[in-house]
C-alpha cells in the first residue's frame, strides 16, 4: 500500500487548487513561503519553543482506566489535546501558520471557524504576535458556541457573523474566501486540512505533532503501539495529524469518525464517506455531501466542528486506499460518550471529540483487555456546556 503524494497538492485523484484567478498568485506565494519555511530549521525551532512555552506541549497521554474497565475490553488511552492552550488541537496549526504569516510580512489575518476553537486559537496567536484578526463564523454556530465568540473578542479579534446558506462552517469558509479575494495581501489562516493546495499539506504538517508525540508516548509509557487509533473528522486536521504518526505502522488500524447527526438522510448528518461522493468544493477535490445536481448539501451535527459538507482530500485517498476506515457516530452516541467520559474520567470532551470516544466505546468491548485503543481527545467540552444543558433540559 502506498500513501505517497503523486504531485504536490495531489492525493491520488484528490486535492488540487480550485480557486478564482484573483487568488492564484496569493496561493502560489503561500506555497513558496511554506516550502521555504519547511527547509528552515530556525522556523521549526521557534515553533517548537512556542509549543512548549505558549501551548503547554507536549500534551499528556492519559489511560482512561475506569472507562476501559467498565467496557471490559481494550484499554483506552487519550491523547490530551484538550489540555493544549485555548483548549484544542487547533492551536498547533494556528501557531504554525501565524509564524508563517509573520515571516511573509502579513499583518491582517482572516480565518473561518465552526466550533470557534480555530477562531479562538487564531485570535490568541494574533494577539501574541500583534496581528489584526478577523474571524468569519456562521450565525448558527455563533449561537451554539457563544463562549468561544466572547473569548475571541476578549483577545481582540473581530468576529463577523455569516448569515448566508446554512449559517455554519461552509458559509464561513465562503465568506473568508471572499474577503481574501478582495484582500489578497491578507493572510488566510485556514483551520483544517482542507481547501486549495498547500493548505491540506501544511495544516497536516502542523498537526503532525499530535501523532509524533503520541507514538513516542505510547512506546515510552506502554512499551508498544496501539492496535487502533481513533480520531473525529470534521475537515480532518486532528485526524490527519494523529494518523500521520502511525501511517508507516501498517498493523495500526486507523479510524476516522464523522458526524452521523440525526439520521442517514442527506442534510441530517455530515458523514461524507457514507453519504457523499467525489466532487470539487471550496478549493479541493474530495468527498462532498451534495445532491444529484452537484449542489452542496446542508449538513447537521450536534457538534459545530464536524458540521461540514466536505472532508480533507488526504482522507479521501486514505479511504480509497483502505489505509484508514471511516465510521460515524450519531448526535445521541456522541452525547452518551460525552457523559460517560465526564463521569468515568473527570474529563469533559468537546462534542467533536466525543464522536471519537463513542467509536472507542463501541470498539473496546469487541477487543481483548491487552489491546489498546488510542483516541485523540481533540478538545475540551467547556464550549459545549450550553448545548449539553439544552439537550438535558437544564438551565445554566
Amino acid at each position, binding site marked *: 500500500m502506498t500513501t505517497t503524494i503523486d504531485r504536490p497538492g495531489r492525493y491520488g485523484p484528490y486535492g488540487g487548487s480550485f480557486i478564482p*484567478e484573483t487568488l492564484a498568485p496569493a496561493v502560489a506565494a503561500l506555497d513558496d513561503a511554506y516550502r521555504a519555511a519547511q527547509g528552515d530549521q530556525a522556523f521549526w525551532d521557534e515553533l517548537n519553543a512556542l509549543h512548549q512555552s505558549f501551548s503547554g506541549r507536549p500534551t499528556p497521554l492519559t489511560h482512561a482506566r475506569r472507562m476501559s474497565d467498565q467496557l471490559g475490553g481494550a484499554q483506552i488511552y487519550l491523547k490530551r489535546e484538550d489540555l493544549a492552550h485555548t483548549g484544542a488541537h487547533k492551536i498547533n496549526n494556528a501557531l504554525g501558520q501565524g509564524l508563517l504569516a509573520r515571516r511573509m510580512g502579513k499583518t491582517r489575518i482572516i480565518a473561518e471557524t465552526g466550533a470557534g476553537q480555530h477562531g479562538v486559537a487564531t485570535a490568541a496567536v494574533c494577539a501574541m504576535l500583534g496581528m489584526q484578526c478577523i474571524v468569519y463564523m456562521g450565525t448558527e454556530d455563533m449561537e451554539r458556541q457563544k463562549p468561544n465568540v466572547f473569548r475571541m473578542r476578549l483577545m481582540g479579534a473581530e468576529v463577523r457573523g455569516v448569515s448566508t446558506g446554512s449559517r455554519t462552517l461552509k458559509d464561513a469558509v465562503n465568506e473568508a474566501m*471572499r474577503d481574501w479575494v478582495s484582500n489578497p495581501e491578507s493572510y488566510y489562516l485556514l483551520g483544517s486540512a482542507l481547501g486549495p493546495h498547500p493548505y491540506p499539506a501544511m495544516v497536516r504538517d502542523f498537526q503532525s505533532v499530535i501523532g509524533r508525540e503520541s507514538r513516542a508516548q505510547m512506546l515510552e509509557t506502554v512499551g508498544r503501539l496501539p492496535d487502533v487509533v481513533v480520531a473525529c473528522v470534521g475537515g480532518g486536521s486532528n485526524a490527519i495529524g494523529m494518523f500521520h504518526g502511525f501511517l508507516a505502522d501498517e498493523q495500526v488500524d486507523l479510524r476516522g469518525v464523522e458526524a452521523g447527526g440525526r439520521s442517514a438522510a442527506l442534510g441530517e448528518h455530515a458523514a461524507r464517506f457514507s453519504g457523499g461522493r467525489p*466532487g470539487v468544493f471550496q478549493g479541493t477535490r474530495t468527498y462532498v455531501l451534495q445532491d444529484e445536481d*452537484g*449542489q452542496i448539501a446542508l449538513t447537521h451535527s450536534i457538534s459545530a466542528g464536524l458540521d461540514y459538507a466536505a472532508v480533507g482530500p488526504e482522507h479521501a485517498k486514505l479511504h480509497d486506499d483502505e489505509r484508514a476506515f471511516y465510521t460515524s457516530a450519531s448526535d445521541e452516541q456522541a452525547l452518551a460518550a460525552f457523559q460517560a467520559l465526564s463521569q468515568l474520567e473527570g474529563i469533559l470532551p468537546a462534542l467533536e471529540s466525543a464522536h471519537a470516544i463513542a467509536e472507542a466505546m463501541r470498539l473496546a468491548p469487541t477487543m481483548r483487555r491487552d489491546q489498546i485503543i488510542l483516541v485523540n481527545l481533540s478538545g475540551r467540552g467547556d464550549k459545549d456546556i450550553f448545548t449539553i444543558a439544552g439537550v438535558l433540559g437544564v438551565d445554566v
Partner: protein
Amino acid sequence: MTSRIAETFARCKAEGRIALMPYLMVGYPERGSTMALAPALEQAGADLFELGVPFSDPLADGATIQRAAEQSLRNGVRLPDCLRTAADLRAAGLQAPLVMMGYYNPFLQYGIDRLCADAQAAGVDGLIIPDLPPEEAEEASAACQANQLDLICFVAPTTPEPRIRQIAQIASGFIYCVALTGVTGARTELWSGLPDFLARVRQHTDLPLVVGFGISTAAHIRQVGAYADGAIVASALINTLDALAPEAQTAGAAAFVRGLR
C-alpha cells in the same frame, strides 16, 4: 468556420463599439424569466449573454449574485434546466452568443464530456468556470475543444505578467478581465488601475478583452470602451430587476441595457 463569439466581436469592432454582455442568472427572478428577458435585451442592444448556472456556494460572487442564485435554486432551476433554456432561446430565434457561467462541481457531476456535448447541441458557445484555474482545466479544456466551445480564461489585476502570457496562449473566445480585486457586485467607481491592467493584457493577445465585475453604469461602459472589447454587466442588472414590479421587469431591464449605450 469562425465561431459566433468571434463573429460578434469582429462585428462590434467594425461598428466601432464595445460589445455588451449582460449576465442573466437562469431562472431569476422567476423560473421562466430568462425566456422573456434574453430576447428583450437582445432587442435592446445586448451583443452576447452570460447565462448564470445557479450554485449553492458561489465563492467568487458578492451578495447580489449569491441572492439571485439562491432564488433560482428555490425556483427549482438546475443545470439541465439551464441547458434547456439555452436550447429554447435558440429555438425562439436568439442570435447572440451564449456563454454559460457556472461553478465547477455541478458541471463535474453532470459529466464534463456530456455537458460540453449537450451545451453545444443547445446552442451554447462557451463556458466560464470561475473556480477552475488553467492548472486544473485539462479535462474541461479538451471537452470544450472537442465540441467547438470556448473555455473562457480569466486574468485578474493580481495576475503576474508571466502568467498573463501563459493564460493568453491557451485562451480562446475572449479573455475575461476581472475589473477589480474582489468579488462580483455593483460598484460606483471603476478601479483606477484598469486601463494599465488592460494594456498589460493586450500586449500578450489579439483575443477580445472583456471586462467584468463591478461594471454598473453607462459611464463605466464609456470609460472601458476606450480599452476593452466587451463589458459584462451582472449585479447592476440584477439590482435593476429587483427594483421593479414583476410586470415591469422585462421592459425595465431592456431600458437599462439601452441606457448603457
